[in-house]
Every structure is written in C-alpha cells, then in structure tokens.
C-alpha cells in the first residue's frame, strides 16, 4: 500500500472516531493555520498609511498558494459577531521572505469592513482567506515601457506590481484629493529619488479631476506603453474610451472596484437563477410566495420565520426582513429566510 493510501485509511479511521465531527474540527482548536485546514490568516500588524488607510500584515495559513502581483484576495472578518467578506488587492511583493502578505485598506464612509480593518483590527485576530485571484496582473514577457494610471485606493494593486518587479521605464500618474491622501507617498518618492519611477501626482482638490486629454502632455509616449489603470469607474471609463479612440485598447488593462453598491428600494425583479425564472415582486410579499406563485420549487416549513426550513442563498441584490425592516445585501454565503424576506430592489435567489 502506498503511503498516501495508508494516510487516507488512517484519516478515514480518524473520521470514524470523531463522527459526527471531522478530525479537522478538533485540529482547528490547536492549529487553525496548519496545512489542510480551511484557509485562514492571522493579522500580525496594522500599519497606518494615511489618515484613513492602513496596511494589514497577515500570516496566511499553510495552504496559501501564493499570488501574482496585481491580484486580490477575499477576506472574511467577524465584525460584531457577523462574518463579512470583502476583496482587497495584495500590496506585498510575491517573494516576501517571511511568507506574510499585506493588503492596504482605505476606510470608505460607512464601510463596515474597511473602517474596522483600518481603525479597530487587532494583531492576533484570525480571519478567513480565499486563494488570491484576479487577472489584473503583469504579463510573463517584460514590456519595455509601462504606464500606471491610478486614483485613490486604486493604487493598491499597482503598488503590488511596483514592489514585485522593476521595469526599465515606468511612469505613474496618481490622483488623490491632497498630498497627505496619497497612500505609499514616501515609498513612491523614494523610488523617484532612485530614478526607478517617474511620478505625476494629481491633487484633485486643487488641480481638479484628471482630464484624460492631458495625457499627451504628461506622458507624450503613452500610446507605446503597456498600461495598467485602476480607480473609480469615471476614470476607467474615460481611459477605455481614450485608448480605443487611439486604437491601442489592447495596451490598456483595467481593474474595476466593486460594482456600485446595491440601492435598497421597495420591490424589484426577482430572478430565481437555478430555475431561470424572473418575476416582478413588490416590497411586501414574502419571496417564498413569489417563488411558489412562479412555479419555483421552494423549500418551506412554518412560513412564519421560526423554523429556518426555507433558507436559501441570496446571490445578488438586497432583501428586507419583513419583521424588522433590516436590509440584507447579497454576499457569498449569505442565506435568507424566504418566508419573511421581501425584495428590496432587484435580487437573485438561488432556487
């Protein structure tokens, strides 16, 4: 018998001993970051960057597969007892010797997770991690000339790139309201001093928004440059238009932030994505009834919110709890009780 076969036998036996739990449920008590555990990380330090941004140093579990510069990672943080997931760009180089990774988070107004991470996260806290993902990355072959076009926290994936590989000819245009809002400002200026980077800072509070037509003046050879752009939708839309007008759209790589926040309204189109049905729902009828009327097979029980027999994943959109008025927005892993939830805007129910 091969050693792997032997190992899996031993594991099976162990599973029998721990049933109905799994051996990992016990191992998690002592070693949550071990190989083979669900991927987690431990916050080891929080370094303030600007007034509202901080870099979080995380030791990932042994199962971490490593990232490519420019990628992002989804993290799950428990806030007020509730696990919330968000995606953040990785800002650490891929070859960091101590094996730790960093994300750099800017607190957005009313942002539950970002504010928590920037202002309240404590070293030692365990968080959930996903493997890194995203195709906003550098190519295998080194481009001769590079342009980074960023705004606000759009600088984070690009910082991951800058720290990872040095190119011969790199230009960066970065927009932020004021000098003190520029994340990584000291490090960027250090690179400039070392002649590793040419940097233009646009301070939008005084200079106004970046007019994409100014590119010709700021970076005359921009059409020859492989460009990575990351920032708010307005900037990216303008860039995409500008690049395709000049017929060089294949040189532009963009990364968009989270699609616009769901606006919770009253009722909306409900999609039952498994069945492939979409129906218009008002804001007062339980989704259970809406589904059943549309002929979708909906699990149910008490129909009054007490048995949890109707829980169903909410894939997109928002719903309102008919008892408390509380709004729940779709996030991976979010389940709702369809018997006491109504559509608060368009939503997608996995049934």
């Amino acid at each position, binding site marked *: 018998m091969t050693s792997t076969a032997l190992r899996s036998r031993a594991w099976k036996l162990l599973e029998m001993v721990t049933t109905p739990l799994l051996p990992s449920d016990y191992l998690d008590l002592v070693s949550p970051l071990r190989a083979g555990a669900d991927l987690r990380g431990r916050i080891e330090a929080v370094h303030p960057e600007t007034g509202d941004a901080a870099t979080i140093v995380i030791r990932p579990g042994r199962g971490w597969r490593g990232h490519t510069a420019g990628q992002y990672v989804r993290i799950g943080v428990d806030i007020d007892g509730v696990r919330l997931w968000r995606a953040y760009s990785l800002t650490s180089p891929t070859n960091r010797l101590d094996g730790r990774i960093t994300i750099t988070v800017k607190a957005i107004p009313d942002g539950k997770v970002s504010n928590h991470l920037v202002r309240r996260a404590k070293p030692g806290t365990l968080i959930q991690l996903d493997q890194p993902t995203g195709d906003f990355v550098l190519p295998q072959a080194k481009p001769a000339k590079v342009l980074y076009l960023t705004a606000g926290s759009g600088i984070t994936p690009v910082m991951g790139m800058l720290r990872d590989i040095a190119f011969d000819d790199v230009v960066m245009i970065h927009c932020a309201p004021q000098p003190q809002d520029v994340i990584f400002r000291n490090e960027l200026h250090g690179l400039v001093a070392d002649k590793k980077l040419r940097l233009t800072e646009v301070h939008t509070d005084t200079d106004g928004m970046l007019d994409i037509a100014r590119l010709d003046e700021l970076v005359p050879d921009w059409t020859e440059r492989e460009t990575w752009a990351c920032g708010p939708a307005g900037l990216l839309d303008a860039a995409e238009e500008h690049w395709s007008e000049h017929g060089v759209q294949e040189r532009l790589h963009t990364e968009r932030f989270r699609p616009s926040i769901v606006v919770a309204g009253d009722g909306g189109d409900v999609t039952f994505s498994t069945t492939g049905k979409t129906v218009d729902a008002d804001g007062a009828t339980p989704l259970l009834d809406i589904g059943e009327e549309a002929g979708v097979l909906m699990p149910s029980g008490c129909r009054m919110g007490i048995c949890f027999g109707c*829980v169903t994943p909410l894939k997109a959109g928002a719903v309102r709890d008919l008892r408390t008025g509380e709004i729940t927005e779709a996030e991976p892993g979010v389940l709702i009780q369809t018997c006491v939830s109504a559509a608060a805007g368009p939503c997608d129910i996995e049934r």
Partner: protein
Amino acid sequence: MTAIDPTAHLTSEQIEELGRELDAIRDEVIADRGEKDAAYIRKVISAQRKLELVSRGVLLFSIFPPAWLIGTAGLSVAKIMDNMEIGHNILHGQWDWMRDPKIHSTTWEWDHVSPSEQWKHSHNELHHTYTNVIGKDNDLGYGIMRVDEDQKWHPFHLGQPLWNFINACFFEYGIAAYDLELGKNLNKRRRKSPEFRARAKAVGRKIRKQVLKDYVIHPLLSGPSFLPTLGATFTANLVRNLWTHSVIMCGHFPEGVQVFERRSIKGETRGQWYLRQMMGSANISGSKAMHFMTGNLSHQIEHHLFPDLPSNRYAEVAVKVRALFEKYELEYVTGPLPKQVFSAWHKVFRLSLPNKKPKVETPDREQELVAA
C-alpha cells in the same frame, strides 16, 4: 381543551397588544446581538470539544475505576452539551446570523442518531409551529402516550408509564423513529415510498456511524479497557438520554400546561400564536449551571416564543416575558426540576387510566378556542 380556558379573560385587542409587546422584546435582542454572543457560542463549542476529547482520552484507561468514573462523567456532560446548548440551538438557526458556515443550521451535525436534517423538520417545523396542538404536534406524547383528559383512552395506555420509561432510556432512538414518523410509515405502501426509504437510509447510516464510534472503535482503541470503555459510553448515552428526556418532558407536560384543538389554530393571528406558545410551555427554575445543562430549555416558554434568539439571551428575556404574564394575568408555569419532573410523570400515570368522559363541545366553546 382544558376544563377552564385560562385565557378567556383576554379580549382579542389585548391579545394583539401582547403580540406587539413580545415582538418588541425580540427586536431589542436582535438589535443588540453581536460580538459577545458570537464569542459565547464559540467558547461553548470549544469547551465541549475539549471535554469530549479529554474524557475519551481518560476512558482509554477505564480499566482503572477512577478513570472510568471521571471519563464517564465527562463524556456524559460533553454529550449533553452537544445535544442541548449547542446542537439543539444551532439547529434552530439561533446562530445563523453569524454567517459562519461551521456554526450554521444548514451544516451542523450532532452526536445523536437522528440526522440533523430530519430532526429540524419534525422539531422546528412541526413541533414549533403547531406547539401542543393535538394531532398536529406529535411531540405531545410522541404518538405513544395520552397527554390530555380529552384524548380517548385505550387499554394500551395502561402501559404508558413503562413506555415512557423505555423511551427515556433510549431517547435518541425514540427521536429518530419519531422523526421518521415510523408509526405512520410502517404500512406497506408508505414503507416503499422512495422518499421514506431515503430518509430511513439516512437514519441507518447515522446510527451505524454513531454505534461504530461509541461501541466498537473507541472500545477497541482502549485495548485492555475494551469492556469498561464500552460500558462507559453506554452509560454516558444513557445519562444523556435520561437527562434530555426529563428536560423535554418538563417543557410541555407538567400540570398547568394547555393543549389545543386542531380547529383552534385556524386563522390564528400572530398574537394568538404567541399566546398559544405561552400557555403551552413550562419552565424549570434553577441556577445558571442548571440553565446551561438544559441548553436553556429551562426557559422553554421564552424559547417557544422566540425559537431563533440566541439561547444565552433567554435568561434576560425571561424577566420581561414574566412581567407580561403578570400584566395579562396568565399563569407562568415554572418550578424546580424535581417538582416539574414529578408533575410530568404524575400526569403520565394519571392519564394511563381512563377518566370521566370529556364534555361534548358546543359551538360556543369552539369560539373560545379560536381565541386561545
């Protein structure tokens, strides 16, 4: 259905007002639910796991009597914690709001021969929706006992103290059979239905795993302590069964608890539903440790009003609920465990014998029942 309706003095407006007041209590807890509660359940789960691990470790040496005693006691407590404060409450969705897939009603599996999925259906859906409605809530006597004067007596009921005792000893198997609705599914046609067979298979699988763990693998691992370990796990299961059965009997059986007619819940309003939960449940009074070991089912009344509120909140909710009982002049049935257990058993004995024929119902009476 009891001779005098203890809620007859309430007007329907009062009942709806009562419902609103209870909703407000619920909303308050929900608004305040957070980090502390999450930390609580995590701590309990981790303590249970450690206790079980240590106890099973000690039992490997159960050939030595002190080890047997300590290990058996520890394992009994661990099993009670698993079933009561952890399993029962998680399966109610009390902790779903944390969005931790490991502590979630859709993923949790407990140390019990009834698979979570089936138990959730019979318990959360049937029992909690139709609490104490004869013919709808099978928890009332589990289909083998007579629990109310108005139920027809049959010579079979003479044996019910014995049935109840046997059920208590093998309670988890009783529950599994009950979740399968074995009685009603034993006729030929139903026995063959694919749905029933799938469920029966799931129970079989679960029983096999549980038995294998408790009565084969663990004793085998103990080597020379094989027999003592076997005895220890058997004892722990027995203790757990007797304990949970007692606690659960106290929830709905003691004297003073009402049962309801099927017809009485037609078109029931939220207020009326609340009222039925209030009149259909009974508490156990006692220390903090007592509440913990019952999985806070000592706060059965509060649990039935708010089955999805985290169990660690029932104690504070109980103060407010009790005040409402007083305000609306209703009887809050509660008492120490021995008293409640005695009361429930007393009823089991009493109803094993026939009683005077129940009063014939008049249309008038039915109207009263709607209000109940």
